[in-house]
């Protein structure tokens, strides 16, 4: 498939010129095209933020909901129709701040979702406040004396909680980003791809130059990827920060929707089903 098949017209992209979101958007389209998944089979779920606008700028089913809530919405979509390819897309504030609790429990639940987090370490939509991943000391219009809370380490968090696929990219590395998105979609289970992304308007510290100087691509063999201790070491290391797949569980662990009794005897998506009224009648008769 041609990535242009995901283009949407007319489109008025609201991102700033030079924003890393453009690179992630094109990597996402290319990944889907190379995997030959037509837009009718893709559901792009997002919350609120600049990154969360991504679904609007390409073809596919979309649902842009509330700030921080993309993961439960995406889980609901996938559990209702496991045949769909579901991605939850958002920024660091959306996924790691407002939606932090959902992140923890989506990792535990392990639905077959791809979670793309555009991590620019700052709030863009609301104009420059600190995010959960902002570095210590970053001065903002609100954190006027600099950030005093430790930044959250999303990849270490995900690995520590048993996420089945954890990767990190940098938006300017478009080939790597595309490959990681493809691997995440192919992975049967929850897959986190944390993508470093410069915010050209509000983050003057973590710039393109800074990311280039502070990241490197880490090559790993499939066996090495199954080593959670090694993954944790990589996740805790840096700067420079390793990019690539950091952890990938050996296949075999069933994803959330595969464990649901709803699909044990019937693989049809829920929308095709009608209520089992005979079954209800039979149950009701046991109440006498």
């Amino acid at each position: 498939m041609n990535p242009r098949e995901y283009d949407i017209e007319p489109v008025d992209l609201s991102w700033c010129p030079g924003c890393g979101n453009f690179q992630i958007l094109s990597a996402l389209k290319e990944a889907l095209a190379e995997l030959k998944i037509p837009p009718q089979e893709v559901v792009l779920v997002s919350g609120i933020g600049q990154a969360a606008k991504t679904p609007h700028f390409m073809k596919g089913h979309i649902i842009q909901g509330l700030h921080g809530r993309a993961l439960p919405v995406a889980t609901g979509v996938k559990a209702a129709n496991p045949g769909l390819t579901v991605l939850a897309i958002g920024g660091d504030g959306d996924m790691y701040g407002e939606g932090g609790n959902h992140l923890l429990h989506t990792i535990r639940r392990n639905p077959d979702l791809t979670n793309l987090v555009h991590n620019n370490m700052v709030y863009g939509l609301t104009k420059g406040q600190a995010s959960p991943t902002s570095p210590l000391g970053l001065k903002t219009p609100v954190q006027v004396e600099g950030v005093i809370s430790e930044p959250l380490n999303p990849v270490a968090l995900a690995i520590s909680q048993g996420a089945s696929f954890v990767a990190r990219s940098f938006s300017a590395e478009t080939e790597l980003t595309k490959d990681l998105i493809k691997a995440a979609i192919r992975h049967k289970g929850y897959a986190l791809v944390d993508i470093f992304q410069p915010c050209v308007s509000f983050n003057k510290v973590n710039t393109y130059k800074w990311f280039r100087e502070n990241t490197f691509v880490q090559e790993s063999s499939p066996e090495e990827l199954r080593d959670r201790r090694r993954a944790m070491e990589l996740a805790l290391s840096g700067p420079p920060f390793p990019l690539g797949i950091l952890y990938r569980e050996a296949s075999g662990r069933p994803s959330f929707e595969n464990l649901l009794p709803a699909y044990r005897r019937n693989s049809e998506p829920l929308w095709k089903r009608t209520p089992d009224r005979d079954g209800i009648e039979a149950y009701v008769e046991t109440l006498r």
Partner: protein
Amino acid sequence: MVRELSIVLCGAAGQGVQTVEVLLVRALGRSGFHVFSTKESMSRVRGGNNSTEIRVSEEHTEAFVDRIDLLVPLNSGLRKNIWKRLGPDTLVLGDREELKEEFASKEFRFLDVPFLEIAREAGGAVTANSVAAAVLCALFRIEFEILDDLLKERFGKTPEVLEKNLLSAKKGYEQGVRLLEEGVFALKTPKPDPNWRPLLIDGHKAVSLGSLAGGCNFVTAYPMSPGSGVLAFMAQNASRFQIVVEQVEDEIAAVNMALGAWSAGARGMATTSGGGFALMEEGISLSAVTEIPLVIHLGQRPGPATGMATRTEQADLELALYAGHGEFPRVLFAPGNAREAFELSRLAFDWADRYQVPVFILTDEYLLDSIFELESLPVESEPFSRHFVETEPGYARYRVTENGVSPRGIFGHGRGLVRIDSHEHDEKGHIEEDFDVRERMQKKRMSKLRLLEAAALPPTVKGDPQAQTKVFCWGSTGPIVAEALDLLGREDVSMVHLKQVYPLHPSVRTLVEQARRVVVAEGNSTGQLARLIRLYTGREAEHRLLNFRGHQFSVEEVSEGLGKILEGGEPE
């Protein structure tokens, strides 16, 4: 004269009062008695003192009464709320060994039955509850085989436990028969009807089964009493009915996951109570702007905040009515009994899908924990219909239509793309800030309110619709007011029970206008329905009968309250 007895069983949590209740209610039902039961319990897993009222009658009953004809205390430490309901005619059936000095004074009619001793001899002290159930079965002349069957159904999976309980029940039953023979049991029991074999169903099951009949196939919740009874029922039957049930990390996830499921064509419900629902509010607003259908089961309990976890109240009408920022239509159902809980839960899913709005099933702890008798449930009465479409290329999710309802596409069905957005949006679901588009879309969404008003369910009127005094009530208070009117015996008073509290049926206005005196009886401290009626009709209710102690009204309380109002005085 209709014979009727009100039995109250009391015991500590963990003592098996619930087992006695289940065994006795079902044994009575299978023997042809009319039966209703309701319980109140403390928020603790062990100890304390909980009570269950079982009404056994020759006619249908479905309301809580204060009167106690037969009290069966399984432990000492009867609480104040029970003491004050004892009258000179109350017979106390208890074990002197357990109760010690309690009920020792002469003012009580006390019948000593050695539950513990019988239990110890038969199956061990823990089976005292089976002894009690068996004694009562014998006193109501229920055949032992019925109890035997019920015990096998309840304990059949663990033969040792079953054996002990059967033995205890046998001894208890013999003791009951002896009491009858000796003539010391002085109460006149109702006559059973051999043709009556009712369904016995509590509110949790009624909501759950109604939802299933309405096509519910996706349930999310974070446990919170009393909303979690529905979660438990659905989870225990997920495999049987092939539905998705997930206990989630918080109520925010519950509502958002349900919305995700609906957008892929499932029929989802989040079940909760007031505190959990408060966390869902933003999701209600999301349902409204995205026009994703949603069903919320809100089992009310007393607030604010943690309030009283295992108690009841009707104070979340306004919460449900106004929850969520922005303006949008919604539906509030408030069933009064198990039949209505079943029917309205089924309808909730149809209406949510048909009108693409959030629909609330407002129940409360009292309704959910009460067991109602029914001849049958109308599982098949309405055909099942879906209201989504197969999409075509160029599909626009929010197409402006005459009645405001846009054909709803779902993910993965059709060649079109379904684009759903929480921002204000254009017909294709794209973010839009154009003022004209905003106005058009807001009007489109609000125009669904006219459809809902046209579909609104009429209230139930009991008595003369032209009666001078009308008592308005909603939800679980209905059957109590209905029986209170019977007790009162006045032809100039009628009841108007609302099973849909929003939007109101147009006849509510007429009924209010025709009344010389409007009384509103409801389970909160400020009169929320009374305010809603004033909002819709401009009429300030002349009297409000309110109850917010944490337990539902009793029939007597409503009857006396109405009596005072009719005499011209204000109720306390």
